[in-house]
């Protein structure tokens, strides 16, 4: 069973929960950018939490179904259609051999997910199916490529109530933990950081989101390089923040003012260049409690 790529779009790649145990070899965590949308897709299909999905950025993708399959579309509204007719999203859907799945133009959000029953069975590379272009691990999908997955028929009928479907147009305030060099930034620097509204710049990809705004004068330009956590906010030499994301290097030498809470990074994954971003403080107890609940709900094992 499989799905054939007709039009690969701009940047669509297979991702799972991530390559989470290879940082010591210099490998990024990788994996899906929007953990919320991805987890819901797998949940509605009764999949394992780590089942691989197709992450579609900005749309313009066409696929052909080669065998009957149960799928679930979540994440950005990219005008998803089956055989050229608007189709259900955030809902398990049976598709049949010969059906054409298409994503058109972006209507809301940035990243869409195609989850299939039991996940895509692409090659496992270093314990994960996640593609990382920066590290030359795997490739984005290509025209005529066949993405393997098992044949499945509809015994599942799950959907997300409309009121719970995320609204990606909402203003975003990222909650941030006072980690790393937070205390080495002066009170004035921190005030400026939390008071202002930043914009996402054009340098915004799976590696990191660079923000534009009023620079905060830097404390020290370079420090001894140290391990980077997902969501770390570096203050680069120009005084502007870079939020480090799934494909970020494992080690870096810029001072970091804090670390963004992971479930807010899922929301950030649906924002694009020019969108506004603000920050507010969060304490570690709150962050751990909320993430632990998320992990428990979706049966995430680590």
């Amino acid at each position, binding site marked *: 069973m499989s799905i054939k790529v007709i039009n690969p779009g701009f940047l669509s790649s297979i991702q799972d929960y991530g390559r989470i145990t*290879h940082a010591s070899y210099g490998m990024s965590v990788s994996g899906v950018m929007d953990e919320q949308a991805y987890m819901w897709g797998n949940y509605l299909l009764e999949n394992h939490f780590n089942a691989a999905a197709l992450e579609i950025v900005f749309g313009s993708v066409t696929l052909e179904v080669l065998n009957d399959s149960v799928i679930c579309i979540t994440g950005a509204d990219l005008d998803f259609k089956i055989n050229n007719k608007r189709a259900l999203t955030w809902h398990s859907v049976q598709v049949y051999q010969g059906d054409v799945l298409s994503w058109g133009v972006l209507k809301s959000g940035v990243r869409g997910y195609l989850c299939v029953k039991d996940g895509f069975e692409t090659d496992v590379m270093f314990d994960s199916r996640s593609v990382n272009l920066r590290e030359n691990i795997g490739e984005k999908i290509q025209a005529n490529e066949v993405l393997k997955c098992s044949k499945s028929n509809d015994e599942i009928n799950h959907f997300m109530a409309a009121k719970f479907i995320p609204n990606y147009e909402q203003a975003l305030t990222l909650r941030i933990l006072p980690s790393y060099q937070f205390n080495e930034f002066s009170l004035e620097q921190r005030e400026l950081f939390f008071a202002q509204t930043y914009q996402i710049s054009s340098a915004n990809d799976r590696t990191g989101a660079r923000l534009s705004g009023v620079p905060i004068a830097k404390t020290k330009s370079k420090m*001894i*390089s140290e391990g980077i*956590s997902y969501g770390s906010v570096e203050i680069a030499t120009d005084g502007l923040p870079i939020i480090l994301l799934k494909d970020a290097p494992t*080690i870096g030498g810029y001072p970091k003012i804090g670390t963004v809470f992971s479930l807010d990074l899922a929301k950030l994954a649906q924002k694009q260049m020019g969108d506004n971003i603000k920050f507010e403080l969060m304490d570690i107890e709150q962050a*751990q409690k909320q993430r632990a609940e998320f992990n428990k709900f979706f049966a995430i094992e680590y």
Partner: protein
Amino acid sequence: MHKIILAGESSILIYFGDKIDASLPENIANFANELKSQYSELIIDQTQSYTSLLVNYDLSKIDYSKFSDKVKALLNNFQFSDSAKAPSIIHIPVYYGFETGLDLERLLSEKDLSLDEFIEIHSAGEYLVHAIGFSPNFAFLGQVDERIQAPRLATPRIKIPAGSVGIADSQTAVYPADSSGGWNIIGRILLDLSLNNPENIHKFKTGDKVAFYPITRDEYLSNGGKL
């Protein structure tokens, strides 16, 4: 001396010192192993760097304050050694030439050195692996002789060929794969360190030593080296 700080919702950073020191890589690696063996069910991943260790733990099993306490207790009881035991040395052949060493000509004139002198200095060093990171299999090696140290390029190159040997301040390293980067490129190696061979992830360990030796253009080309 040792310090534990918050790094993320499921990670802490442990500092073992505030200066780059030759005894740290091995000590940190030993501590990381000990931590992993004592609490394997709690630890997801660890990232070692020059003076620190980032530890990613399972927040579903233990919270920040309890985990920090466990790490603190282990730190207090851990035997750190002053002198590193004799590490294994990895020898790597380099063709130091103007075709492969993209910044070599400029560096020679800035440093007022002949090519032979430059090669002699770089290949005389036995470099310690201080950290592995930035990209897969990228080993940060130190310390480079002051006579050939050079700061990163103001504008990083878009593409540096795989195998290129670079210098950035007191560090030297090999780019395992084609990559963007701002290090001064002085030559290229014959070994493939990329992920094309998955076993390469075991090539370098923190605390190991690396030594480079020069090969001629002919030796480089006849063994499959590319220009």
